[in-house]
């Protein structure tokens, strides 16, 4: 993916850019609001990572508002030290697609950026069926089959699996699951998510030879075919 990274702190910028390049993305960098805005409007990107507080008179939200007012729908991930709920709401209202507070783990950032990039590509056609390596999910009848065998899932387990399948091949972090499946925006002290995923594994993976749900160390989970 072609990613624009607008971040003024050189250490954070270097760290993120290096990480994204290593995972096979093309990264353009800007260290102030003016350059960032210029790049964002003049070139085409798959995802923009935007710091909120930027030098150069133009802050992240201004860039975002300008982009949206020009009908530019490039997915934007806001990166900010402002962890306040109100700040988060302000960022999302301005047209941001996701919000990540500093300090963050790179794996979390990567997972979210890839999710955004994917969403930008296949949002056009609403899907009724998801299928990965013999695991089929019918979104209309809300049934799941694997190798022709029906799997009974609780409503929440269904939504968890749906989320994983929609992000198949990508890392999905625990926070993303908590936000996407449960709509909770706080960190529970214990890792309740792990238990839910392991229950889902019991039903989806255990009776079969090849596991589909993989744990990615220090990051989260991934549903993939190999």
């Amino acid at each position, binding site marked *: 993916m072609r990613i624009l990274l607008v971040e003024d702190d050189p250490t954070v910028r270097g760290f993120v850019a290096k990480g994204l390049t290593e995972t096979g993305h093309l990264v353009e960098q800007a260290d102030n609001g003016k350059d960032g805005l210029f790049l964002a409007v003049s070139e085409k990107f798959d995802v923009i990572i935007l710091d909120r507080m930027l030098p150069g008179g133009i802050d992240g939200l201004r860039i975002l508002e300008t982009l949206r007012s020009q009908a530019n729908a490039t997915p934007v991930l806001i990166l900010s030290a402002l962890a306040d*709920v109100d700040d988060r709401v302000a960022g999302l209202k301005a047209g941001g697609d996701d919000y990540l507070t500093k*300090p963050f783990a790179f794996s979390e950032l990567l997972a979210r950026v890839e999710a955004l990039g994917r969403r930008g590509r296949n949002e056009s056609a609403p899907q009724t069926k998801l299928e990965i390596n013999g695991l089929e999910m019918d979104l209309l009848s809300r049934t799941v089959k694997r190798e022709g065998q029906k799997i009974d899932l609780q409503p929440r387990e269904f939504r968890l699996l749906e989320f994983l399948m929609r992000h198949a091949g990508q890392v999905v972090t625990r926070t993303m699951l908590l936000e996407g499946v*449960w709509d909770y925006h706080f960190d529970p002290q214990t890792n309740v998510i792990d238990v*839910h995923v392991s229950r889902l594994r019991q039903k989806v993976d255990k009776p079969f030879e090849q596991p589909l749900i993989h744990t990615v160390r220090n990051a989260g989970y991934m549903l993939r075919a190999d």
Partner: protein
Amino acid sequence: MIPAPTEPDEQDLPERRRGFRLPRLSLKALRYHIGGLRSAGVRFALGYAVLFWVSAGLFLSVIWWGTASLLQRQVEASVAADARALSERWSDGGLSALALTIEDRLEDNVDDDALYLLVDPHGERIAGNLPSWPEAVAMSNVWYQLTIKRAGIRGVAEVQSFDLPKNYRLLVGRDVRGRSTLRHLLTDTLFWAWGIITILTFVGAFFVRSMFRRMISSIARTTSAIAHGDMDRRVPLSGRGDEIDEVAEAINEMLDRIKRLMDGVKQVSNAIAHDLRTPITRARAQLEYAALHAKDETTLRAAIEEGVSDLDNITAVFEALLRIAQIEAGSRRSAFATFDLMPVLSDIVELYEPLADEQGSRIVLRAPDHLQFYGDRSMIQQAVSNLIDNAIKFSPHNGTITVAVATGFNPAPGDRAGGRIITIDVSDQGQGMTEADMERASERFFRADAARNTPGSGLGLSLVQAIVQLHGGVLQFYSRSPGLCVRMYLPLPEDDGKKQGTDMTEDSQTYHLQDRPDLLLSQS
């Protein structure tokens, strides 16, 4: 300013200087006491004084003017009546009758203030008590004011002349010496009254000013003491319950709130200073040790990973602290809305059920089907999650964690007495808490001895406490045998409370909190 007695030559000079200085001093003192026009008290008192003074002056002037003109009109009316009667006498009985009548009238006049003069066409006096026709009186039916001399006394008279047939002329008047005396008396009296009123005005103004000063200065003293750091000072109340007391109460309330907020900030900074040092030290030691002693890459990596996870924990603690401080500051009411509490609770229970299952315990939810609640949904979620999280941590194998919701009435006296409240209980069957621990349980970073070895930051219950307070509720801990029950008392919105009461299922209890009269659902 007392001269040094060693120099007798200069004795005279400082003496004189002191003489000069005294008025200056007193002027300064006066200015201090009055405070100049910048003082609101002085302006207030002066305004009062001027208003009172002017209105008293107006009032007295009206009295004076009214009395004087009444006297004037009386004179005019009696002269006119006299003249009319006399001219009738002329037409009835002619000159002799008129002359006789005039003599009669003069004799009957007890006050000796009547003036008559009847003259023939040559100006010769026929009857009356004036020696001759005054030269000034030329026209008839016009008032003249004359100085006349009668029996050796000069006086003022008001006269009018009337033309009679055959060029005879009649002069009728009144000696107004008495009236002038009365008027002078009245003027003097009113003047003195005004003088006294002026003095009273200034005395009153002084009292008004000092009263004003008294009530303002107690507030000013308190606020300036607070500004200088004495946060415990409060504005004294007079107990009369007047407007001043209302202002004082409002200020005191504000000060209480400021103090609470400052305490919160102090607690957070203390927490950062003391409690965050430990994990930071650990992370630092971890990384430093690895940098110095790691033999191979694997150990180095492991150490760095551990350091990073330590830092993540520190961040989490930071966020929790800030969040608590923010909630305690009461600035997060913007997200308050009415929502159905029950699906929110069942979602949380569902989220934690597998976790409890893993630990060998189970969660039971006892609640009505629907319950409208007014508050911040995400905060209530977090509070209940924290409580369930705790309960799971301390629940024994095969234990039951109960989440029970009930509605009831607030029995506490005060504004919210009798208001509908909701209680959310989260109880476990673990080892419980001692009384002393319960009291400190919601303090930041407090961890009971029994909990030292479980993961956690000691901020979970502080956050719950802050959330409950933001919603105007109370958090209480009760001992169960065995176990602990944490109960949140939260006020319900008034309007749809009654409607919801019927939705309650049979098995959910209704608490009438008579057994907890000490419980106060106070405003946070």
